[in-house]
């Protein structure tokens, strides 16, 4: 997790196109300026960053479903619940699944776990053509380094 770059997801553990699910890992850093302010003497991950983590897992799920051809943008969150504090150095399991595949938008249900439930939410993402080539290239590179590309290929192989 590179908090200051808003890169929340470190690796994809599993992706299942048929089930419309993804399991990813997000490693909370031991130190970050975020923790210096939130909070002094009691560092915990801000809830909005946990929502962002679920949104990014949902985004990578959608990218996996569409074969990295169209870009999901986070546009709505509902029913977000935070059940446990997350401190520096925590390894998070992030799960997302497709709740509804609409026309130009997708709704997901996502949750984060670490020794039990951490948080969960329902997220809406708008699906658009890539607005910039640099973004598309960068995401393809990230998909490869975090294991999404391989997971897509594995899922496709299992489906045949």
């Amino acid at each position, binding site marked *: 997790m590179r908090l200051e770059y808003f890169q929340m997801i470190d690796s994809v553990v599993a992706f299942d196109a048929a089930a419309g699910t993804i399991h990813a890992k997000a490693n909370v850093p031991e130190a970050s300026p975020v923790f210096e302010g939130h909070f002094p003497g009691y560092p915990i991950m801000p809830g909005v960053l946990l929502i962002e983590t679920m949104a990014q897992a949902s985004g990578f799920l959608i990218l996996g479903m569409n074969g990295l051809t169209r870009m999901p943008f986070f546009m709505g969150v509902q029913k977000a619940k935070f059940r446990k504090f997350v401190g520096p150095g925590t390894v998070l399991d992030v799960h997302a699944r497709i709740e*509804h595949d*609409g*026309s130009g938008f997708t709704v997901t249900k996502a949750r984060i776990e670490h020794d039990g439930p951490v948080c969960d939410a329902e997220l809406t993402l708008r699906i658009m053509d890539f607005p910039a080539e640099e973004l598309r290239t960068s995401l393809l590179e990230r998909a490869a380094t975090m294991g999404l590309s391989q997971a897509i290929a594995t899922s496709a192989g299992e489906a045949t």
Partner: protein
Amino acid sequence: MSSTFDIVADVISETSEIPREKITPEMHAIDDLGIDSLDFLDIVFALDKKFGIKIPLEQWTQEVNAGKASVEEYFVLKNLCAHIDELIAKKNA
């Protein structure tokens, strides 16, 4: 059409907090009811789920942007309901 309209009006009322009694079939979702694109997506999500269909919002938007269809064709509620009825009929065919 009446039952489809009733469901659509109920969904709009619940999603956009517009009093149900103010919603009529002749109304334009954007111009008359002031529903924005984000709220409209929530409405489409709810209608997709309720009717078990996939409202082709992207296709409709492209048709309107290309001048092939008027905004009223899809956003006046009685027309929206007619299109939903067509999608339901296709699903059941």
